[in-house]
């Protein structure tokens, strides 16, 4: 790992001050992606700004028809939260599939979403449930948030405060894990929301996206069969040693069907 300076901050204001005064700083949430990346010298920030002491970024609450999850809330906390288990059980289930127990003790929802890893689990749920990403500057719609591989709508100095999930009528997540890394080779989150059926896909493309094709088929007939003839174009999907783009496109349908089976 290259050398860097370390700063532990206790407020959002302090983060902003640091960001504006430092050379090439990087914000660290749980560090479950950042530290391995730095170990491999794929990232070499001049400074690390550690958010773990900012208490206002933690916690889970229910406000009217929404579940609000602070950005520094760990996967373990989401997975075991009574509120999440009751209101959005699919989200609690998803959190329990991330990494392994030790990783879930440290990894955070905000870190996962801000990183926009193409195979991270959370982005599919954020998109499918139509969550809002609340930052220190604004509220961003899930549909506008994930832009590309490791790229989001966040400005360099923008910090996610919390995620605001509308409680769906029902929802389910199904994932085909890459067996070594346990990241999603493909994961599909299907939600029946107040605004209609929304389907979020992770692992398949450069970043999480909505499958409008599956959404359309399901709004006509909410059944596994209705997906059978849907065409998931593989042109822009990921292809690597683990799975070809065609296989990923196939898996999108299979995972979507499994999610629907779970819901009916």
């Amino acid at each position, binding site marked *: *790992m*290259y*050398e*860097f*300076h*370390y700063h*532990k901050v206790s407020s959002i204001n302090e983060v902003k001050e640091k960001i504006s005064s430092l050379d090439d700083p990087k914000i660290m949430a749980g*560090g*479950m992606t950042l*530290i*391995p990346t*730095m*170990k*491999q010298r794929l990232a070499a920030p001049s400074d*690390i700004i*550690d958010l*773990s002491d900012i208490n206002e970024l933690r916690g889970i609450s229910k406000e009217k028809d929404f579940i609000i999850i602070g950005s520094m809330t760990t996967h373990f906390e989401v997975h075991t939260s009574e509120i999440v288990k009751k209101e959005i059980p699919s989200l609690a289930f998803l959190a329990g599939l991330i*990494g*392994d*127990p*030790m*990783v879930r*003790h*440290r990894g955070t929802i905000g870190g996962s979403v801000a990183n926009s890893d193409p195979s991270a689990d959370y982005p599919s749920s954020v998109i499918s449930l139509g969550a809002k990403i609340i930052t220190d500057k604004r509220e961003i719609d899930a549909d506008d948030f994930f832009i590309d591989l490791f790229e989001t709508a966040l400005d360099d100095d923008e910090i996610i405060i919390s995620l605001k999930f509308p409680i769906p009528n029902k929802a389910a997540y199904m994932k085909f894990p890459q067996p*070594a*890394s*346990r990241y999603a080779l493909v994961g599909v989150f299907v939600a029946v929301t107040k605004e209609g059926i929304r389907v979020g896909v992770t692992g398949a493309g450069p970043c999480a996206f909505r499958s409008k094709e599956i959404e359309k088929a399901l709004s006509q007939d909410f059944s596994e069969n209705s997906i059978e003839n849907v065409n998931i174009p593989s042109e822009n999907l990921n292809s690597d040693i683990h799975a070809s783009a065609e296989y990923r496109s196939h898996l999108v349908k299979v995972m979507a069907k499994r999610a629907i089976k779970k819901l009916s």
Partner: protein
Amino acid sequence: MKINVNVNGQDISEEVEPRTLLVDFIRENMKLTGTHVGCDTTQCGACTIHLDGIAIKSCTILAVQANNKSITTIEGISKNDKLHPMQESFKENHGLQCGFCTPGMVMAGIDIRRRKPSIDEDELRLELEGNICRCTGYHNIVKSILNAKM
């Protein structure tokens, strides 16, 4: 940077570089070499320790992040020369072969039973997904964790 940590019940104050990983601090500074490093990618679990009582991978946290926290390593779980019940159970059930993964397995096992005292075998196998063993085939590790008298 100066950090203050409690390691296995002992208060320690040490100067570390920000880039020092907690596992390196434990192994190099504390000379506690029971905590192992088996990978570069946060996958193997050989480095599992407890930070404030919770199992984490010490290869994926900076030593400076452990400031003002307490660390328990495999060396810190036996009391008065008596093995911890989890260690005892690994011994009883032949839960190790080469022993490289074992400190991590024991520390993860204690954490699992703390969270889920009456866990069943299927769930336990899922809970162990972050701990890799190249020798045992896991059966005896699973047996050891299930049968530990804790």
